[in-house]
């Protein structure tokens, strides 16, 4: 008689333990370490030093001011845009959506740099156009309102996308039914559209707030020159002036950020809870109100907004990269490609940064895919409480501000590894592990939705054909989820390649990333080189996004952050 094996499901026995171990190592361990350190230092009374310093309270106040201000701007921009794009007969919707979401994909330090190059008395762009303010006038962006404005612009797409997801589920016939029931456009908006939009609006605002609290690039470029500190930049400056109490301070400051961010996330969860409106009727065409003569006005208005938040800063960035020094106008005599030559062929710092970022992003994107495919398969085939816990554990490091995660990894790896007695602190490997942890959720999402969308009978048919787990993976499952896997790799690469927040805390000589290199070049006054490097990063971001656009029709819905 053949031996019966106890197999209750399609997964091999090693799969669940494997995934659990990976998730614990990448997520559970650093989070637990941070929590432990924060609590221990607080209980031992070392907190008093930190929380009696006025600088701490000023940073907390600055953080809240800039995040709340940024959120208000994000909600205004994102909501206006979302309502007009989803509900009206506005033309060029896909182009405008792509352009509007682009700022989200551009690294924040690049956005900040571009805006600095666009404004102020020394702006090469304004000089070229002859409209620069007189020398000696202040740079208006080096202020709390400047930080808030840029946070608002950077995170407006988050509100836009959250709202669009809610409104996109409103099919045209829903609105038409309300019109036939006798409602004129205003009651339709009030009774049908607004109830659908409110959860998305709250959720979007909460995400924008959390992202604002955790943002490092913008306050670092705009705030540090003016000695305006928010919590993430305060942590950064404490680490730079390394002292005896640094670890204690850093872990406590991180806990403060984590608590503020956690409150924001809780609001988001609450807003979305029990309000899943995704399956209303047949998802046909979106509702369309006719704007009539206002259509041209709306379109012109949007073009103007996009000009100021996207075209002008990028033009300023390009201009700055083409002039020899900051403050020189661009013309036929001054134009030069020296900055590009410098960063691409001469400066070893930027070359190393390129090599490091490409290595880190490539390894993270491809390495994570292996874990991601196995995890996504497990989550799809074994839904339940455990799957929810695993999903949350994977999502927390991504939802947490990068600076908090970086501190967690510093605490975890500051001492040499047990048993091996090797320290990876200060090497590129600590950045790599932190990236694995931080971008697991980014990598997982496309693959997980592809697996969930897959008809389980496709795999069952392969089982009955006699194919074991490895064989099914290779022949059936992986080919079927390949587009989503491709999207996962490109998305992670895109985000990791220009990442600054995590690497800003974890880099040391020789392991700087592109994000760090841009920041350092700007910090040391080489704004032309910083701009040239930023231009290259923006070009790379746009190219990768276009690559994803081309994949889009093979992907499950909701995989690309800028499409619904």
């Amino acid at each position, binding site marked *: 008689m053949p031996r019966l094996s106890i197999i*209750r499901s399609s997964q091999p026995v090693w799969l669940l333990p494997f995934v659990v171990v990976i998730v614990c190592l990448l997520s559970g361990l650093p989070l637990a370490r941070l929590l432990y350190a924060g609590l221990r230092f607080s209980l031992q009374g070392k907190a008093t030093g930190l929380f009696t310093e006025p600088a701490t309270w000023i940073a907390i106040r600055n953080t809240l001011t800039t995040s709340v201000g940024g959120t208000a701007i994000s909600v205004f921009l994102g909501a206006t845009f979302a309502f007009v794009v989803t509900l009206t007969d506005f033309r060029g919707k896909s182009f405008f959506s792509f352009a509007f979401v682009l700022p989200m994909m551009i690294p924040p330090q690049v956005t900040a740099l571009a805006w600095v190059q666009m404004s102020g008395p020394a702006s090469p762009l304004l000089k070229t156009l002859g409209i620069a303010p007189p020398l000696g006038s202040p740079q208006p962006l080096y202020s709390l309102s400047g930080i808030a404005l840029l946070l608002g612009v950077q995170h407006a797409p988050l509100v836009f996308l959250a709202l669009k997801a809610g409104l996109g589920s409103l099919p045209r016939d829903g609105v038409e039914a309300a019109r036939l029931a006798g409602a004129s456009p205003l009651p339709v908006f009030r009774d049908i559209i607004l109830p659908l939009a409110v959860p998305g609006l709250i959720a979007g605002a909460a995400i924008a707030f959390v992202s604002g609290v955790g943002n490092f690039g913008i306050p670092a470029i705009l705030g540090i020159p003016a000695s305006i500190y928010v919590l993430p930049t305060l942590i950064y400056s404490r680490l730079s002036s390394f002292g005896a109490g640094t670890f204690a301070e850093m872990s406590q400051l991180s806990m403060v950020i984590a608590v503020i961010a956690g409150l924001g996330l809780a609001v988001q969860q609450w807003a979305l809870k029990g309000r899943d409106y995704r399956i209303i009727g047949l998802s046909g065409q979106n509702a369309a109100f006719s704007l009539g003569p206002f259509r041209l006005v709306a379109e012109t208005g949007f073009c103007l907004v996009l000009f100021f938040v996207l075209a002008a800063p990028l033009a300023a960035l390009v201009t700055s990269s083409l002039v020899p020094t900051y403050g020189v106008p661009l013309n036929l005599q001054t134009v030069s490609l020296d900055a590009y030559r410098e960063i691409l062929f001469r400066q070893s710092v930027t070359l190393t940064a390129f090599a490091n970022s490409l290595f880190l992003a490539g390894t993270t994107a491809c390495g994570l895919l292996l874990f991601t495919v196995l995890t996504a398969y497990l989550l799809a085939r074994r839904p339940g409480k455990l799957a929810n816990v695993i999903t949350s554990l994977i999502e927390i490091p991504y939802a947490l501000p990068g600076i908090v995660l970086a501190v967690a990894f510093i605490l975890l790896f500051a001492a040499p590894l047990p048993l091996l007695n090797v320290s990876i602190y200060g090497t590129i490997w600590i950045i790599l592990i932190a990236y694995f942890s931080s971008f697991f959720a980014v990598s997982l999402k496309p693959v997980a939705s592809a697996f969930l969308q897959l008809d389980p009978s496709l795999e069952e048919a392969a089982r009955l054909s006699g194919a074991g787990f490895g064989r099914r993976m290779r022949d059936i499952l992986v080919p079927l989820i390949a587009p989503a896997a491709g999207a996962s790799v490109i998305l992670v690469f895109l985000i990791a390649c220009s990442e600054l927040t995590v690497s800003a805390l974890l880099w040391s000589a020789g392991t700087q990333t592109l994000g760090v290199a841009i920041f350092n070049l700007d910090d040391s006054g080489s704004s032309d080189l910083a701009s040239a490097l930023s231009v290259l990063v923006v070009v790379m971001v746009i190219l990768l996004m276009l690559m994803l656009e081309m994949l889009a029709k093979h992907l499950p819905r909701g995989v690309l952050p800028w499409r619904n």
Partner: protein
Amino acid sequence: MAQLILNHLSKDFGTGRAAVADLSLTVREGGFLALLGPSGCGKTTVLRMIAGFEQPTDGSILLGERTLADGSGSLPPEKRNMAMVFQSYALWPHMTVAQNVGYPLKVRGVSGAAWETRVRDALAVVRLEEFAMRRPAGLSGGQRQRVALARCLVTSPDVVLLDEPLANLDRHLKAAMEETFREFHARSGATMIYVTHDQGEAMALATDIAVMSEGRLMQVASPQEIYARPEGRIVGGLVGQGAILDLTLPDHGSRLVFWQAIEASFRQTAGPSRPVLVRPEHVVADPLGIVLQVVSCLFEGERFALSLRTAGGQSLKAYSATAMPCGILQPFVIRQGWLL
């Protein structure tokens, strides 16, 4: 090959109510068994346990001398040498028709000329040779169904399972596919188990029908047997058209009751009543019969379907060649009934 034995099979998903309860069934070698029942009766769970996708909570499944599953363990589906036609067909969209059909062979290490010959033969049976290089997306529903069938055929499996394979096809295609299934069964000689909620399909295709209700097996018999001599109210109500009358009949005597006895029972008022299944073809208008009221009269194409009501308020069905106005009283004779 050998007979498939389900032995006191039970499955509980932990919902409080067993999905399948104590089901014992023997499918003879080369038989074509239809598992018939309303949706949610557990028939698909039985099929999935036979395939190995679900593990029985209790009981065992045997194929000849081989134990496929019992309460403690289960042979994984990939080792069972079975094949299945899924309701969604489950064709792999990234493979051509030939690759889909040939995949079970590829897994078994067949390649080259042998692979090509066997795939071509399988496709010939379902008459799809010229579609070998197409992808499933380029086929119609019926063609996809036939590809799924060819994939079952190619490895000569011991048991072929069919999970409501005609549910997604239109009526015209259904008839054609039923013919293909019959041909396939005759040709392959495999034991086939066919899950359906459509009794017409079950009657037309199967050599045996097993009726299930709420996780339990109600009756197994040939189509003719189950139509003429159903066991119990549930089977009587599920299989075929008809109405169940509660009549006062004597305890002894045969289960097939004729007009005299039925007529007598209508006059009888006292005594325990017993359920009698009356098929509409046995209810005919006749001046010698009892008077029934015509509740409704629907035109069905080849005849009219009547809904009737007795003086006692019980419902009956009948067929009529001519239309009858609603509400009129008309005498009918009930030629025969079956004591459930």
